[in-house]
């Protein structure tokens, strides 16, 4: 407890903890729909695309976060439109977009005045450098994402669960899928200071994967997933402070550790009950 209090003495750590809570809530709240759609890795792809946005921001000497936001949204919409065409080349086109995103980022950042040093903060997270301005922007975006994810939860669930049935029911499936893609892009950007764009997908997927091991309903999975997201984000940030490790990697390893522990416990419980 004293350790936690010591963490709170530092302004950058207070900001880091608030950012961690925002990410811990939003990433699983959006990720659950991606997992249900069997698109768990789409966040990973969006992270790759966001790299180009961050690099562009660094080259133009502008705040990388808003530029990354615009780039990730354009990437997300493009991915959804390509997927919706459902043609044979869709998978290859998506791969091109993902590789192009990270390649574009690497090439662009080589032209940035600060070099590639700053890019690493966004690739793997650097929560201690989160400014008050970043935090305010993340908070607004996170609230926006949550309002939409909860307010339109029924429609997002229906389309993620069975898009053919949703279409037959007259739901605007394409628009809802585009909305989910935009929500995912915003979540990637909100999370990039905390876990980094290359690890953001883990926080969208792993807490949900852990929750579904013990939950019996969609609603319960979302609630447990968010709780796990918050716990591992906060725990990872505090742990990284004391262990002097990168926050992104620490959070993700903690999340995976919790998944393994839950998996083993639930498997053992089922075995004993047989």
């Amino acid at each position, binding site marked *: 407890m004293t350790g936690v209090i010591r963490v709170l003495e530092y302004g950058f750590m207070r900001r880091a903890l608030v950012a961690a809570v925002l990410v811990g809530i939003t990433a699983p709240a959006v990720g659950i729909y991606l997992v249900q759609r069997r698109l768990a890795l789409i966040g990973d792809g969006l992270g790759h695309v966001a790299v180009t946005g961050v690099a562009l921001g660094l080259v133009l000497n502008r705040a990388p976060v808003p530029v990354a936001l615009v780039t990730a949204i354009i990437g997300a919409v493009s991915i959804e439109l390509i997927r919706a065409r459902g043609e044979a080349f869709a998978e290859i086109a998506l791969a091109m977009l993902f590789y192009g995103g990270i390649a574009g980022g690497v090439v662009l950042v080589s032209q940035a005045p600060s070099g590639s040093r700053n890019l690493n903060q966004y690739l793997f997270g650097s929560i201690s450098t989160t400014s008050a301005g970043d935090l305010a922007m993340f908070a607004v975006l996170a609230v926006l994402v949550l309002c939409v994810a909860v307010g339109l939860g029924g429609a997002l669930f229906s389309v993620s669960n069975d898009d053919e*049935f949703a279409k037959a*029911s007259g739901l605007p499936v394409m628009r809802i899928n585009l909305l989910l893609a935009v929500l995912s892009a915003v979540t990637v950007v909100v999370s990039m200071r905390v876990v980094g764009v290359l690890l953001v997908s883990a926080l969208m997927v792993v807490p949900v994967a852990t929750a579904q091991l013990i939950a019996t309903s969609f609603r319960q999975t979302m609630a447990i997933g968010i709780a796990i997201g918050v716990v591992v984000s906060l725990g990872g940030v505090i742990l990284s402070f004391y262990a002097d490790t990168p926050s992104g990697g620490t959070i993700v390893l903690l999340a995976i550790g919790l998944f393994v522990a839950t998996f083993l416990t639930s498997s053992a419980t089922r075995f004993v009950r047989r």
Partner: protein
Amino acid sequence: MTSPVISIRDGQFGYGNQVAAQADLEINENEIVALLGPNGSGKTTLLKGMLGLVERLEGSVELFGEPLNEFEDRSLIGYVPQRQTAAGPIPVTVRELVRSGRLARKGLVRRRSREDERAVLAAIEAVGLADKAPDAVSTLSGGQQRRALVARALAGGAKVLLLDEPLAGVDQANQIAIAEALNALVSGGITIVVVLHELGPLESLVTRAICMDAGHVLFDGPIDTAPPRLLHLGHDHDPHGGDAGPVGMGLFKL
């Protein structure tokens, strides 16, 4: 005179430029229509064509007298897709699954009301799964999952039910349970269009047969006047034989 519930005029449906089913027919209120034929005969494509789920290459489709693209009250239509399982990667309870069938009536934004919840429970009861409402769909048998999908289709207050192979891969007991549930709905005045490989326990329920092969309608009329060999066309085919059936046998229409 009331409009047909579903009307297809010179309809051709398919994928890309490939026509997979063609038909010119009307489905009227209170009819129980079976779309019969072997695998690849175009019956699922025709059913999906009625809902706009596959590309319409030619002709027109009307629902309740309105062109398909302009038809707005989708809650009148209940669709049961062909699924081996209704469960996805995330646990979903029967009640949650069936609630998603209420969206067409409830709308995307409005909060769930008591009336919505009553309709959901009534739909679950109609398929005999009331005691399973809080259970995860993944814990149900294949047949029970199919019944949950029927409940989802009913939750919006559908007047027409379109079912794609609801009996495929379902054990005898659940086939009978599905037949009983549909029978009860028929008594309530619902119209049913059902894709079937074989009639099974629905035989006594079906009033009209539309027999298809190779994308064409070979027979369309009262089931008791259908040539038996057409009713059992599905049995003569290799289940993986695709469109290997006879082409251009001519149309029997009564």
